[in-house]
């Protein structure tokens, strides 16, 4: 079936943009509710339960409150940038959603409608480009407020986001090495299995690229500025961080921006590592469009609905995972955060990229065809690497407990030596 073209294409694109954006907004609203419920669950209390059934209307109440509160612009603030910053914070996560394939193509009387707003030829690079702009909102807010806490928050935010952006980009390099293409729908179809057309891996990339998935999830978490990476808004040290001076809906936009970012990150992890809209253990839903325009698999409306649901389920589960992490793990110390980014993630990812390149090349040279066996071999290698990584990171703590032995770190030794000299 041909893709829609001409007027139908324009209409379809406008409709898709509207529908997906409204769904995303709804998702963000529900995510704030979900966060409160998860927090309640983690802390053994009910969470919001007064407004509406099960407190679901709390979302509306919050929105109304944001709008009705007094809006204060500090006298010393740079007015123009102060107003611009919340918009800049909201923009990247929203725009990113446009390149995420959400489901299998929908057949209509006018042609095939792909469930992606814009299938740009640079797909994955577009993601990196827009994600790299996320820092402007934070920095602008911190600087334009003209207060020391905001400023410190802005500086922390920019340093952190620059650092982890590198990890984010580098952990996607192995994905590209496997997929051989940057278009997002191709990334999804490479993780499914088909009867015809070029060979695919037939396995979600989280298995053959386990270590990369781990690094991507952690870097993505750091990019969203959430616990345990919420140093830019650490309330115990710098009040509210970069949004200290913001009130009313301007603060609301930062607040919503965080959830936009959270959902987009979850959706990206789904596309890159969890097979996108693929339904696991069932190849009946798999539909892909080859480069020459031929469609493998029959697009039907029920497949579209099922795959949209599968995508939503994966994204919601990941969002829930991020929320559980937030309410479980305490905040990093700032130097630990930077050390982790620059001294652990980047060297480890560099080594991993080299290793995977060699592994893929070796498998290729050994005559292993692209397919299940190929990905299974990579999975084995990754499992070994993951165990090795766990051993390195763990340093005997998970097994014996952190207090079992006092480790002599160089810093502790130096401090002890300095103390001894002082005496």
């Amino acid at each position, binding site marked *: 079936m041909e893709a829609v073209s001409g007027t139908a294409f324009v209409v379809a694109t406008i409709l898709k943009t509207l529908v997906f954006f409204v769904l995303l907004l709804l998702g963000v609203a529900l995510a704030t509710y979900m966060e409160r419920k998860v927090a309640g669950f983690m802390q053994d209390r009910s969470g919001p339960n007064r407004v509406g059934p099960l407190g679901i209307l709390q979302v509306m109440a919050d929105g109304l409150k944001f709008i009705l509160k007094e809006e204060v612009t500090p006298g010393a603030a*740079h007015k*123009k*940038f102060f107003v*611009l910053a919340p918009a800049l914070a909201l923009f990247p996560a929203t725009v990113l959603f446009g390149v995420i394939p959400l489901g299998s193509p929908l057949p209509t009387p006018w042609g095939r409608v792909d469930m992606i707003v814009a299938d*740009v*030829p*640079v*797909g994955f*690079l*577009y993601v*990196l*480009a*827009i*994600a*790299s*702009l996320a*820092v*402007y909102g934070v*920095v*602008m807010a*911190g*600087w334009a407020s003209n207060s020391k806490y905001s*400023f410190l928050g*802005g*500086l922390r935010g*920019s*340093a952190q986001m*620059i650092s982890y*952006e590198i990890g984010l980009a580098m952990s996607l390099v192995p994905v*590209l090495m496997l997929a*051989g*293409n*940057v*278009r997002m729908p*191709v990334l999804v179809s490479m993780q499914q299995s088909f009867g015809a057309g070029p060979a695919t891996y037939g396995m979600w990339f989280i298995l053959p690229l386990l270590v990369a998935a781990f690094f991507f999830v952690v870097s993505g978490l750091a990019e969203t500025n959430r616990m345990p990476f919420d140093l830019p808004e650490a309330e115990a040290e710098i009040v509210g961080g970069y949004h200290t001076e913001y009130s009313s809906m301007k603060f609301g936009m930062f607040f919503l921006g965080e959830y936009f970012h959270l959902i987009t990150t979850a959706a990206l992890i789904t596309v890159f590592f969890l097979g996108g809209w693929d339904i696991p253990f069932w190849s009946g839903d798999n539909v892909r469009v080859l*480069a*020459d*325009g031929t469609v493998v698999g029959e697009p039907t409306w029920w497949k579209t609905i099922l795959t949209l649901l599968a995508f939503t389920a994966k994204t919601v589960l990941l969002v829930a995972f991020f929320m559980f992490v937030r309410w479980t793990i305490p905040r990093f110390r700032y130097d630990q955060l930077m050390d982790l980014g620059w001294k652990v993630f980047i060297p480890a990812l560099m080594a991993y990229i080299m290793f995977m390149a060699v592994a893929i090349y070796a498998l290729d040279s050994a005559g292993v065809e692209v397919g299940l066996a190929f990905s299974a071999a990579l999975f084995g290698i990754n499992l070994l690497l993951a165990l090795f990584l766990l051993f390195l990171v763990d340093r005997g703590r998970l097994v014996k407990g952190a207090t079992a032995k006092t480790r002599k770190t160089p810093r502790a030794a130096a401090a002890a030596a300095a103390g001894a000299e002082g005496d």
Partner: protein
Amino acid sequence: MIVDFFFVLFAVMAVGGAAAMVLARNPVASLLYLVMSFFALSGIFILLDAHFIAAVNVIVYAGAILVLFLFVIMLLNLGPSKRPDLRGTMYRMLGIAAAGAVFGLLLITLRDGHTTSMAGGMGQATMDAMLQSRGAVGVIAEPMFRSYLVPFEITSLLLLVAIVGAIVLARRRAP
């Protein structure tokens, strides 16, 4: 028609942003106008079918280098500059001469008509097919790592030299 509309939009944004960047008093405002200008430039690259360049332009310039600039401006807390950068007749003359030379070069380029899209050499259909099968990165990577591998690697050497130079300059005043 729609392409013309977007070209004019992006061109106005790019030139306007660049002009505002030079004229703005506040360094942070300057920088934001430059970001806008780069963004508009990326839009023009996309209109020329140079998707990869467009993406890399945003990643490298808007997303990395300008963030670094912003960082430096904020750390040094630079206020609005009161004094003009070009002091004295000599510098002014030099500035005008340099700007005139660049403008002349641009005029020559435009006169010779080097304004065809990347697809110009091989036809739009081939370009679309290549983009469809390999994505924008494949289209760039194929010639870069096959035909032009050595020049590409030499460029990385240039970057290494720049990094070493920066470290040498930074360490000079250390005790």
